């Protein structure tokens, strides 16, 4: 209650028949809207611990409307949303030590609908950073931090093998260090396409497509390091800054007109975060880049793929960066494909669970939810009769393939759009 304001006593109120205040007619019966209600009888210490942090302020703006609860992907498989987190601080839950701290995938669906701009994309990293500094981090996430710090990628693979995937691409994949000249496109491959077996499939497909289109491109090979954006959102800001400095130095060694990235998280990092650390270059996600080349690409897409395909919008391509059309345009260009939309798509796309560190919190999240987000998502794809779940984020292929198996939807085929294009280009 505001200090110094006397509590209104309804029994002392006289109702005017007709009342106009400053030109506004406020006639009507007295009701509770005009009284102070007791809403500040909580201990605000836990809330203030969050709102006192730079980035944590907006949790205090929540007025409990629950718009966010309706769209939070975690709430569908658990008990979660900014509103609930805000409310829990009032009943004694300390977010710094609560399991709630690690469940948010920073998918941004809540921020999309929140009238008060309660921003989990800033709150979560801010609070998590404090937990990271004290070492209170789930071990599997800690391991991903450690692997990234040591090896430059969260999979813990040797840095010197970062370009090994290219050997089996069947087409040349020039490495900038050997090329010794400027290129049109610097292709930032990313950790999962470079090391994960299913990511490599997409990387090799991309290499074949770029070659077929006659793109003048090069990769950084062993000079490339993880972008670090998901580690940042998971609270290891220092690690992100270190990687940003190293990557920016590596990018700066070479001349290129534009960068193309395989993954939406990298796209987000280079477009929105790296400029804060001095990066200055243009970047495109591969879907938008290939749409620019669609006139040349379309005639090469000869082999029909006669399947019902649905598309999963990556949070960091769609909601975070506003790109919904390019992936769909590419899918529509493939002959034979029947594109069906799932109920939760585009702005309201469901999260795969991999963002904001979720990629490295699988067991932890599993313990605190009834089902993985990826499992919920493949069920939705199956409900809509899709035979193929198409994706364009390197985190997703393995997540969804595992989920298809664990939910008994083995028949659902999970493919990166790159793989579908590559398939359709085969004679």
């Amino acid at each position, binding site marked *: 209650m505001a200090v110094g304001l006397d509590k209104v006593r309804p029994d002392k109120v006289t109702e005017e028949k007709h009342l106009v205040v400053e030109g506004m007619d406020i006639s009507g019966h007295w009701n509770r809207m005009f009284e102070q209600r007791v809403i500040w009888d909580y201990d605000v210490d836990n809330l203030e611990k969050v709102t006192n942090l730079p980035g944590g302020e907006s949790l205090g703006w929540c007025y409990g409307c629950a718009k966010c609860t309706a769209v939070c992907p975690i709430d569908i498989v658990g008990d979660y949303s900014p509103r609930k987190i805000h409310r829990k601080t009032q009943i004694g839950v300390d977010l710094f030590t609560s399991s709630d701290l690690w469940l948010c995938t920073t998918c941004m669906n809540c921020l999309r609908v929140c009238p008060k701009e309660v921003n989990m994309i800033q709150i979560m990293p801010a609070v998590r950073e404090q937990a990271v500094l004290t070492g209170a981090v789930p071990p599997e996430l800690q391991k991903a*931090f450690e692997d990234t710090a040591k090896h430059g990628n969260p999979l813990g693979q*040797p840095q*010197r093998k970062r370009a090994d995937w290219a050997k089996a691409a069947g087409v040349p994949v020039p490495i900038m260090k050997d090329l010794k000249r400027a290129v049109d496109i610097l292709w930032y491959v990313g950790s999962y396409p470079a090391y994960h077996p299913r990511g490599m499939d997409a990387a090799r497909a991309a290499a074949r497509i770029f070659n077929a289109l006659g793109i003048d491109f090069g990769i950084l090979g062993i000079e490339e390091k993880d972008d670090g954006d998901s580690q940042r959102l998971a609270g*290891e800001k*220092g*690690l992100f*800054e270190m990687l940003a400095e190293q990557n920016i130095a590596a990018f700066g060694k070479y001349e290129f007109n534009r960068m193309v990235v395989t993954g939406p998280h990298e796209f987000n990092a280079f477009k929105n975060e790296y400029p804060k650390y001095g990066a200055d270059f243009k970047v495109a996600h591969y879907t938008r880049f290939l749409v620019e080349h669609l006139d040349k690409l379309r005639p090469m897409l000869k082999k029909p793929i006669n399947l019902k395909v649905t598309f999963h919008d990556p949070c960091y391509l769609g909601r975070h960066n506003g790109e919904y059309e390019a992936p769909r345009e590419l899918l529509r260009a493939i002959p034979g494909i029947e594109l069906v939309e799932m109920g939760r798509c585009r702005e309201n796309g469901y999260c795969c669970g991999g963002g904001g560190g979720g990629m490295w919190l699988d067991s932890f999240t599993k313990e605190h939810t009834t089902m993985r987000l990826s499992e919920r998502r493949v069920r939705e794809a199956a409900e809509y009769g899709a035979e193929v779940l198409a994706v364009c984020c390197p985190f997703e292929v393995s997540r969804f393939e595992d989920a298809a198996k664990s939910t008994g939807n083995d028949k659902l085929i999970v493919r990166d759009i790159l793989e579908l294009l590559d398939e359709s280009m085969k004679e």
Partner: protein
Amino acid sequence: MNIVVPIKQIPNLTDELEINGDGTGLDHDALQYVLNEFDEHAIEEAVLAKEAAGGTVTVIGVDTTGELDGALHTALAKGADKAARITGDFPRGTDSHTQAKLLANAIRSLSPDLVLTGVQAADDRDGQIGPMIAAHLGLPYVGVVTGVAVKDGKAIVHKEYAGGLMGEFEVSLPMVVGVQAAHQPPRYAPVSKVRQIAKTAKIDEIAGDEAAGAGSTVRRMFKPEAAGHAEMWEGGPEEVAEKIAALIKEKGLLKG
């Protein structure tokens, strides 16, 4: 209790190793340097000992790379209290005899109760730094240690023998220990914390005297020379399985 941890940086083994033009050693300038893994365990054991018995941990190294500060900041982030850098004209790959001499001279002035260092390092694999520091300082040394507990001016050290045998020693302090493994995996220092510390930490500088000269010289260093040859098969599991089956048949390894 005054605990001192001498550390050293070595080439990053996850990188491709290059041999120098003379074929007598690594091409140090082409390599990235990281902290010796056994020294990471020594730091962890030192911090654990401090947490158990109180005291201060000082981490010290010869700056052979110009990048030692990074390792020192990481050690501070893990719980060390002080850091010192020995400076001078000591290039990458400076031999263990020289490093041991420099470290011993610097450590003497710190009057340590306990010196914990990695039992060996992957670069020269001679395991000499610990014993030589002990010899220079006239202190007892126990190596291949997997746990240290300090009580009443004595250290109880666990040493691992081949075949899973364990030995327990009681040694009067001060002493030098060659750590094989800390009794807990080395903790992760969040880069956020390391970077915070890097902004404020004070690192003491100690000028090193001259090199002591290596105890041994490498006549030739070379990559393993392949005796036979291996063929790598690419392809999906089914494709590769077929090739394996065909090979087994071809070599006549199938009965009947």
